[in-house]
């Protein structure tokens, strides 16, 4: 198992370098960082433009791209990051806050979605065609059909606007990470502010995972080896936990790791609806400005997260299905 994991991990670094180089090229071609810089700083002098080119390694020509990439990479590794094109701000403090906010929101929402969704999926699969299967299926369909902006609006109206009207206070806040004016860490306030966004994201996750788990478990429960296990007289509980669930979890686990890996990319719609300053909003602002010095680190974080969680998915997959590591 360890050898398998190491073998996969060895590929992580070259994959990261290759993908970040491709992203670097794509960003330079797609956003034209120099033109964006000029657009954002309309009255900029030639001297400042030259400084920007040098700081970001925006050299022209094929060799210029390679040279520029390695200059950027070295700067990234040594934490000598160029400043943002708007306001000349340090990128890391802002990115770090956005990343922390998105990870917090995304992980909690994913955990809720995975746990609750899988539980519902199991419940439905154990009684196919019965009332609770119908309820879970119908609920999942509704959850999938209701877009986040609708559920967000309804939750905001119910738990904030009308609650305020009925009881004189809002049960849950509708925006931000903390109440306005708050500074420092406060777990309770943070959880309170995350409640509604987490529910909005989790509604869809629960629906997706319940459908996946139900289908996967039904597939396993109807397989021949399950009949064999039962015919050997193994208890139904043991059949379910040790044989059925373990196999049914394989595809769901892959999906879960990929989902968790993607959460650092931000939940753009949800973050917008709740004025939540996460990676999604960071990206939208940076992309809107064509802010190359902000976009590249953002991309690296996203790529790093996706690649890492892909690796973890592979390892988990191998752990759950020993045939994988033999292949």
């Amino acid at each position, binding site marked *: 198992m360890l050898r398998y994991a190491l073998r996969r991990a060895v590929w992580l670094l070259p994959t990261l370098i290759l993908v970040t180089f491709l992203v670097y090229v794509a960003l330079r071609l797609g956003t034209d960082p120099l033109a964006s810089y000029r*657009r*954002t*700083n*309309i*009255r*900029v*002098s030639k*001297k*400042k433009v030259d400084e920007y080119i040098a700081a970001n390694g925006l050299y022209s020509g094929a060799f210029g791209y390679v040279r520029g990439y390695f200059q950027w990479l070295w700067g990234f590794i040594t934490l000598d990051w160029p*400043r943002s094109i*708007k*306001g*000349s*701000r*340090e990128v890391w*403090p*802002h990115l770090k*806050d*956005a990343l922390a906010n998105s990870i917090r929101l995304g992980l909690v929402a994913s955990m809720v979605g995975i746990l609750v969704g899988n539980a519902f999926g199991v419940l439905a699969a154990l009684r196919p065609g019965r009332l609770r299967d119908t309820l879970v299926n119908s609920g999942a369909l509704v959850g999938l059909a209701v877009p986040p902006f609708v559920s967000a*609006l309804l939750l*905001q*109206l119910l738990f*904030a*606007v009308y*609650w*305020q*009207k009925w009881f004189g*206070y*809002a049960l849950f*806040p*509708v*925006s*931000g*990470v*903390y*109440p*306005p*004016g708050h*500074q420092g860490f406060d777990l309770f306030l943070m959880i309170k502010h995350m409640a509604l966004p987490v529910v909005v994201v989790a509604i869809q996750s629960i629906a997706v995972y319940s459908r996946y788990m139900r289908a996967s478990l039904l597939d396993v429960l109807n397989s021949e080896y399950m009949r064999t296990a039962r015919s050997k007289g193994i208890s139904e509980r043991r059949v379910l936990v040790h044989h059925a669930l373990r196999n049914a979890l394989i595809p769901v686990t892959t999906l879960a790791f990929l989902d968790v890996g993607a959460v650092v990319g931000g939940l753009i719609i949800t973050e*917008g*609806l*709740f*004025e939540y*300053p996460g990676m999604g909003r960071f990206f939208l*602002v940076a992309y*809107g*400005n064509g802010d190359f010095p902000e976009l590249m680190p953002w991309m690296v974080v996203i790529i790093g997260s996706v690649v890492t969680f892909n690796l973890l998915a592979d390892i988990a997959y191998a752990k759950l299905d020993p045939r994988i590591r033999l292949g």
Partner: protein
Amino acid sequence: MRKIRKSTRLAGGLLGSVLLLAACGGGSDSASDTTAADGGGASGDAAMTITYDIADEAVWEDGSPITVADFQCTLDAIMKTTGSISTSGYDKITSVEAGDSDKQVVVKFSELYAPYKGLFGGLIKKAAVANCADISGDFGTSFNYSGTEWKMESWSADQVVYVPNDKYWGPRKVADGLKKLVMVPRPETEITDLKAGSVDFIYPQFYAGITDELADPNVKTVLNYGGDYEALYMNLGVDGKNTTAEGEKTRVFADAKVREAFYKSIDLEALFKQIYIPIAADATLLTCGPMIPGQYCPEGIFGNKYDQKAADGLMKDAGYEKNAEGLWAKDGVAPKIEWVINTGNVRRESTQAYLIPLLKKAGFNVVAYNCDAECYFQKRLPGMDYDLAMYISTAPPDPAYLVPSFTSDNIPTEANNQKGQNFQGWANETATKALHDSDKEVDDAKRTELIKTAIVEMDKDHILIPLFQFPKSGAYRTDRVDNVEGELNNYAAFNDTYQWKDLDGDGQIVIGAEQWPGCLNPVTECANSSWYVWTVANVLMPGAYRTTNDGKYVVTELLKSEPKVETK
């Protein structure tokens, strides 16, 4: 809740708004004050000399005195910083020197400058910047000084927190019990936040239906008519910037006949009924040009000129023929007219939805070219990357703002080091001369005529289509905050927060902002947003004058008295 997004542009230049925070007040005041001071005589070769006496007790937030050095630094920063958005008025200053002491500032001008009260409206603290001659790299993540009743405790993408400045010396002491003023970005949720009690006050852009959305027993909405107006603006283009996204070399509105034809193809009365009457039933079409009704508004210009037949004739005279699609084409090409507004602005999107089909029917190939407010006001507009724009200007009562926005030498190009805010590329000799002369004219009646002359030229050249004097609106929770209505009509917006009363006893007042300044530099393009001025510059920067709710100048506590003005 419906999404709204305020998107105004401060007429007269952002620098004018940031550093000319007090650039308001009637022109008559300005002129008469200058005349009254004529008894003196400008010293040396200066055409005009102004002597400011700084209050002895005036200090920065660290207790250091505000002195002539800060005036000098302000001038340097505005004139020399890369990317300074407007140098209007400051470019006439030849020197800023100490008088009897470093608390006396003697400013000499190369020529008369009637709207001088707009100068030094927001001082830059010399000790707060490394090099006054280039502050473009300063103010990245904080505004590290204050000369007002508030000082910044923290700023981030999530909120700005102000606390009382305990070194503040003036009369605007923060109300008892008020410990924090917090502003938070709420572009998407401001009404929900207000109704949920997460914020105490919002300053939303008005649109049809907003009063219904704001209906709540604990919310009060206040409506005033001040210096805001909305109009359509045509970009004539300029060398080096007159290319469209498709690479066409000439802006379609460079041709005066096309502009006139376009104007005459819009039935403004019908448009007004469609868009503005639902907002204010008794509203009337604005006909003053880039100006609200008042002494500077010429009569008998602009207004509804709808005449499709005349418009068709003008297009033919300009060399256009209708193509198979019924669009005006020249040399086989039907030029696109890129109409930019900020996405999410319901009223402007409705205007596009209403007008674009009608204009296409009239033969104009108008297409929406929208982007968010930041992109619109800080990129496309100053980059002159549009053909047609629709926005609200927040104009001070003094018409000095017309100079950087409508004179030919203020079209930002490489040749003039990107100076000015004439983003339409309009170059009219008569108007330019009249506007520049108006800056030098101290006689109020003559100055008014010069302003009118320039506006009449705008009408003749059909460079804009004025639409509506736009209401200013504020909404607040009556159970959380009180005494907020005093300055809502002020050019400087909600600038009397020091006297707002915190009713719920939490020691803070929270303002939900429709836009958020992406950066804090008071001189560069960062300041090209009314929300920057309202949420940062107004709050922290001391100046010589400030505006009042009824559009007057008043000298601030920074000075001992009205400055002494001497002219040759």
